[in-house]
């Protein structure tokens, strides 16, 4: 993950950046205009904090651990860091968090990572292989199952590879667009879900959104990434937007914030 890509936008003195940094920046930009974001463990943590300092100053962070309106004095190392409580506007029980904030429909964007994802944005974070005799036992749902169902929309952030972007996931931990947009919309409506499902997938190579059929569509290639690279790291032939965009380089300010303010030790960006 230390591969550096030179800026491709022709800007003067483009800062060098890693694939992880590009992924974080791209995810942060997608949060423009959003209001309430549910923050899970890992990359979402830094992406949402970057968004709050750039495109979404009004963004309210709801930490899965129960802190609301956090003003961390340092980049929280985990979603349970004590720095997210001191100075927060509220610290609540998990019952309240999951019942009233998440299931109650107050969360605009839920972030999910994934071990496997399919073309309809259905997600596996439970096991690779058979459930009873797994090849790899993954962490499991945590809050992912209920975030996928209840957050108004879902952002996925993950690195892509043949093992992670697959035709068929081994276990469905979090429902996406199920077998397609029509079924998904019907079920979400019938069941009174407040969430509309996945809306964006940001990887180390590209940005995807979901088209009318509920399928992932490649919309923007990160600088330095190629269509061949994308195809080699997916288990299906992706739909491709016309025209296909190139993700703008991280700005100098975005890079400064990541490297000097948010993650000076490189915990997320190594």
């Amino acid at each position: 993950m230390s591969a550096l890509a030179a800026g491709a936008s022709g800007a003067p003195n483009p800062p060098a950046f890693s694939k992880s940094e590009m992924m974080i920046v791209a995810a942060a930009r997608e949060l423009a205009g959003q209001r309430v974001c549910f923050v899970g463990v890992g990359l979402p943590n830094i992406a949402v904090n970057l968004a709050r300092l750039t495109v979404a100053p009004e963004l309210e962070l709801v930490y899965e651990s129960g802190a609301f309106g956090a003003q961390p004095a340092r980049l929280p190392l985990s979603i349970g860091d004590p720095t997210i409580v001191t100075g927060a506007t509220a610290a609540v029980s998990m019952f309240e968090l999951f019942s009233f904030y998440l299931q109650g429909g107050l969360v605009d964007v839920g972030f999910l990572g994934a071990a496997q994802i399919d073309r309809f944005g259905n997600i596996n974070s439970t096991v690779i292989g058979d459930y009873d005799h797994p090849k790899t036992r993954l962490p499991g749902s945590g809050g992912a199952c209920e975030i996928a169902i209840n957050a108004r929309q879902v952002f996925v952030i993950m690195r892509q590879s043949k093992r992670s972007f697959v035709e068929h996931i081994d276990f469905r931990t979090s429902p996406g667009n199920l077998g397609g947009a029509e079924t998904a919309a019907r079920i979400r409506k019938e069941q009174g879900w407040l969430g509309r499902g996945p809306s964006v997938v940001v990887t180390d190579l590209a940005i995807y959104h979901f088209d009318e059929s509920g399928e992932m569509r490649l919309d923007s290639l990160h600088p330095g990434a190629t269509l061949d690279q994308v195809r080699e790291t997916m288990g299906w032939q992706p739909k491709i937007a016309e025209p296909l965009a190139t993700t703008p380089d991280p700005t100098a300010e975005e890079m400064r914030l990541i490297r000097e303010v948010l993650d000076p030790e490189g915990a997320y960006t190594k």
Partner: protein
Amino acid sequence: MTKVASMRDAVAECVRDGDTVAIEGFTHLICFAAGHEIIRQHKRDLTLARLTPDLIYDQMVAAGVARKLVFSWLGNPGVGGLHAIRRRVEAPADGGAFEPLELEEYSHFGMVGRYTAGASNLPFFPLRSYFETDLPKANPLIRPIRSPFGEETVYAVPPLKPDVTIVHAQRADAAGNTQMWGLLGCQKEAAFAADRVIVVVEELVDESVVRADPNRTVIPGLIVDAVVVEPWGAHPSYVQGAYDRDNHFYRDWDAISREAASTQQWLNEWVYGVAGRAEYVEKLGAERLAGLKPSGSAPSGEVDYGVYK
């Protein structure tokens, strides 16, 4: 962005004819100031939800704002009945002067469960109440549900999602982050369940006061539409640490409300006859207010959240 508004503007904007309105607070923190403003603005056809309609809904019913009550205990605690409401419940046919008032009745826990389901976007809330009682016959919205584990049947109540919930509290910041202490009732659940929320507070505080004690926050500004600063806004109910329950008024109301005429006279004097809560408080007089102040201070002590840099 401040949400601070006058009571007049908050009620005018948030409360609409035909709405389901919940002014919650169990004995504590009942916002009479908001109820009176709703009367003054001649709102109509409201469905009023509260565990205990208390004097505030008796007054609102007498003033003609309500067509229906959703409740669990209908009385003047420790005193007796609610006469204005009873006039419309007990004599709907012969008393032409009084339109019938629709009642939808639960138990306390049923009402708490309804708000909880509303706040949680659940299609129902299960509880052990009601089995072998006549309440499910009186209210067909109380329905049995079989446990998928074993043979037990419990009852389910449907979600209650008020159009507007109004809660009183000790303090909030301008963004509506609200802290309260003492009896909490189901202020939180009723607020999260509502489409719109008005918070009425004794004191507006800086955001830093709220942030110093995040565990004390009961309602986040996220769900609040208006913050109204209205000292003594809960009188004759009370506010822990600020003023006592005016038990004399609760007793006086029994006589005042026994006749429709004396009830209207009281409304004319104390509701229509004042511009708002400030005037009402002035009218109560310094002596009466002084008698309701706590006899001393009982500080909570401080805890330390620690700085983590």
